[in-house]
């Protein structure tokens, strides 16, 4: 599979999912079980991606400058900082720790 194929297949699936919502009867939403599962699915995927992006390096688990950067991000989120500030502060933290040689 080429990268272009992957980009296009993933895009088509995502657009199809958006469209699906307009094709199913609205009363389906009243069932709490699928609605709850869809909400938790989003939470689980994002949380799993936080874990893998923080500690993963290929198939290895490493603790490096990303961990303090993510902790800084969590602190800023607690203070209700906007998205861009959180992301930029995390990048800056990791970049400075690496520049000063304090973390890998």
């Amino acid at each position, binding site marked *: *599979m080429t*990268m272009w*194929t992957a*980009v*296009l*297949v*993933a895009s*088509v699936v*995502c*657009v199809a*999912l*958006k469209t*699906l*919502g*307009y094709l199913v009867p*609205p009363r*389906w939403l009243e069932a*709490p079980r699928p*609605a*709850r*599962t*869809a*909400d*938790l*699915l*989003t*939470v*689980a*995927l*994002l*949380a*799993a*991606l936080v*874990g*893998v*992006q923080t*500690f*993963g390096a*290929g*198939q290895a*688990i490493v603790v490096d400058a*990303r961990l303090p*950067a*993510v902790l800084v*991000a*969590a602190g800023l*989120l607690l203070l*209700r900082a906007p*998205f*861009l500030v959180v*992301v930029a502060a*995390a*990048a*800056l*933290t*990791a*970049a*400075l720790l*690496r*520049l000063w040689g304090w973390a890998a």
Partner: protein
Amino acid sequence: MPDWSDPRGCTLGRLDRVSLDPTFDDAHTAGEARRAAREGLGVALATSAYGISFGALAVASGLDVWQTCALSLLMFTGGSQFAFAGVVGAGGIAAAPAAIASASLLGVRNIAYGMRMSPVIGTGFWRRAAAAQFTIDESTAVSLAQRSTRARTVGFWVTGIGIYIGWNLSTLAGALLGDVLGDPRAYGLDAAAAAAFLALLWPRLRARQPIAVGIAAAVLATMLTPVLMPGLPVIVAALVAVIVGWTNWLGAADEPLVEPDDAALRRAQEPWEGLP
């Protein structure tokens, strides 16, 4: 300001009552529609800005500038785009199937948004087809926060189209920037990706059940990283959500149905709420 604190206040019940009310004041409706447009533009500006981080991260993950732009133009759903780039960045082209699966699973919530927006959008094939592409966290959130049908329609289209334009422009800018930066680690872009996922996750952690699912999924995915192919740990962790969601483990028995747009609404609001 509409009553943000009561997500159940903007369910379809109220929509029906308002739209069927023949004595509803036209001038009032126009004012509401203008306010919906203003809110939509504010959310669009704030959201579009972080297309820059997506563009830079996607290029750092090994996508070229055009593939990065294609994701924003075609897929156009931020969480899925970040997930696709993140998984490809960790596992390269070999992880492409897992990247497709991660992006798709994160896109499942858009089904619920489409179901809520469907009666607001109305009829007509092209109108509904266009609306489907603009159906994202933010457009749904701004729309459902309004009270009249007219304001909901305006809020949806202004937010959706505004973000579509802004998000694609800022994606291109971020991708070009990421292209000239060179080594992404020197600029902390790998840490920025983790922080971006945390920031997307944060507003959804407002009850015991999602917090427990989030922690379990993060721990499980991290622990499975050495034993599974890159990308697969994230998919396996999604099973946690399906099991807990289906059995309602740790959930209150009479838990009210939370609007799926609620988290997005809070997230969408915050950037400009904090401005002076």
